[in-house]
């Protein structure tokens, strides 16, 4: 097991290196001259040349790549062209917002997805089965940003009960401990901040969770159906165990392994979905910052954000694989 984890950790290196190469190629080789972009339309050729020299853009590509790698390994992602602050500082400031949103969304998705999947499987071909599976199908077919807009229309515009944008009411921000507002407000006993943060979180989290809920529900249903047909379930029933115990203790536990993989994959997918959800709800996370940066051609910021999100994505997938190995003793890893 330890060897497997070590091997997977080592394999992370080429993948992350690949990520850096892809970002370098896409953003440095294919884009317009960043020096010209930074200086704007009115710069003279001499000014552009001087900046190119200063940024090292007049050097051969392999030298540029070496410099780029060196800087990134030292946590130096340059400065944002828009705000002039170091990219890494902005990322650190906004990262917790994205993670908080994604975590709450995955908790919601897992909870409701599992319930829907189990109900649909246990009551196969009933009204509830068709109802939940139709819901799941609509869930995977609906753009999450559209669901977000509909939720805003319903709960903010029409009913006026939940805020349409932002992360917390202005002035209520809790003292920063972890950067997660829900947690920080609890830790500091700031009840008003907790309430505000919670209210702001509901709509974006529901919108972001919708797609994953649907995927988890479908996966749970199909693995449950497979498990329920197994002999040991018939045995469990035959020896007179209550149905609840059969379903939750015998069936669901064994159906969980593929479901956990899907949950893990969804955690990664949520990071992509966060880009859209954050834009809809003006959530001050990495995703909305990335979109702003792209629209403003703020290329150091785009580069930093993309690298960080991809790295988190890869690490999350690795953690899922390791959990998977722990959970299923039948799987041998060499």
């Amino acid at each position: 097991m330890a060897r497997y984890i070590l091997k997977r950790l080592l394999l992370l290196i080429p993948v992350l290196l690949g990520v850096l190469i892809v970002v370098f190629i896409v953003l440095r080789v294919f884009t317009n001259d960043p020096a010209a972009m930074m200086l704007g339309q009115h710069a003279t050729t001499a000014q552009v040349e001087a900046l190119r020299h200063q940024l090292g853009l007049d050097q051969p590509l392999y030298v540029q790549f070496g410099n780029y790698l060196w800087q990134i390994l030292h946590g130096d992602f340059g400065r944002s062209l828009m705000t002039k602050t170091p990219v890494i500082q902005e990322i650190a400031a906004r990262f917790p917002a994205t993670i908080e949103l994604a975590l709450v969304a995955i908790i919601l998705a897992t909870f409701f997805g599992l319930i829907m999947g189990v109900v649909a499987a246990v009551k196969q071909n009933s009204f509830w089965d068709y109802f939940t599976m139709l819901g799941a199908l609509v869930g995977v077919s609906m753009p999450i940003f559209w669901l977000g807009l509909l939720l805003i229309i319903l709960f903010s515009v029409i009913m006026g009960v939940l805020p349409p944008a932002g992360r917390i009411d202005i002035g209520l921000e809790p003292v920063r401990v972890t950067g997660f507002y829900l947690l920080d407000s609890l830790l500091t006993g700031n009840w008003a901040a907790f309430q505000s943060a919670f209210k702001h979180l509901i709509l974006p989290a529901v919108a972001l969770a919708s797609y994953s809920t649907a995927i988890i529900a479908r996966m749970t249903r199909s693995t449950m159906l497979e498990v329920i047909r197994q002999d040991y379930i018939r045995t469990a029933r035959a020896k007179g165990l209550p149905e609840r115990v059969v379903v939750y203790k015998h069936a669901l536990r064994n159906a969980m392994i593929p479901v956990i993989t899907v949950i893990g994959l969804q955690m990664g997918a949520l990071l992509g979905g966060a880009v859209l959800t954050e834009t809809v709800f003006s959530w001050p996370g990495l995703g909305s910052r990335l979109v702003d940066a792209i629209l403003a051609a703020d290329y150091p910021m785009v580069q930093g954000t993309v690298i960080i999100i991809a790295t988190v994505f890869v690490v999350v997938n690795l953690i899922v694989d390791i959990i998977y190995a722990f959970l299923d003793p039948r799987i041998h890893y060499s």
Partner: protein
Amino acid sequence: MEEEVLELETTAKTSGFKDFVKRFKRNKAAVAGLTILVILMLVAIFAPYIAPYDPYDAQMQIALQQPSAQHLLGCDELGRDVLSRIIYGARISLRVGLEAVAIALGIGIFLGALAGYYGGWIDLLIMRVMDVMLAFPSILLAIAFMAVLGRGIDNAVIAIGIVSIPEYARIVRGSVLSVKENDYVMAARAIGNSNNGIIFRHILPNIIAPIVVRATLGISSAILDTAALGFLGLGVKPPDAEWGTMLGMGRGYIWNATHLLTYPGLAITTTVLAFNLMGDGLRDALDPRLR
């Protein structure tokens, strides 16, 4: 003797196809999906004849008008007819969806077949590159490509097509690996077929089912990605009528013109739902074991 064999082969083939059609037809949801898609295709093809107004005709005096008898789905922020723009939008969504999947499928099949058939360092190289691409959430990579390529339908096709390649490459590689040791492949090799001949004539036709299913479902995710890019302001160039872009533009009017936000989203969801229903139906009909 030879004729007899041929005849047997044709009956086997047609009965296989007939079975497939029968199974597909029995699945009401799949037939519903197919019907919606046929209607959508017709709408896209005959858009100029169906649309009540010119989708690009801006009339500021009726900007943001609510749905009415003249404008069934209302007017947008520039006074353009929303229904006409949704009808024209079907062209863009279907086109990007189909073309992006065609690109991904073409390159993905090629790379996956190479990796699976030859193995060794070719396999290692191709699949590591695919792993790196999978290290990005697909929408993120598509956004990055659009940032570089600039807005436009063709660029959206390229961006979404490229980011979908690894999915197909993986499926094809897996399928090739699973059939390549079969007797008929050995036999084909023994009678002296070239590697290309074996891959294209003997292996690919036998792994087509999972690819078709994946491609159908892939079109729906390509359409969702197109809409997402459009919504973020990275999709088609204005004034092109694209559903996601319409939602992105309408977002600013959420307090006073909700009709700009409901109908384009409904169009996206219906289209994607139709492809998903058909994809699920195809999967069940093509491979009864997967049920």
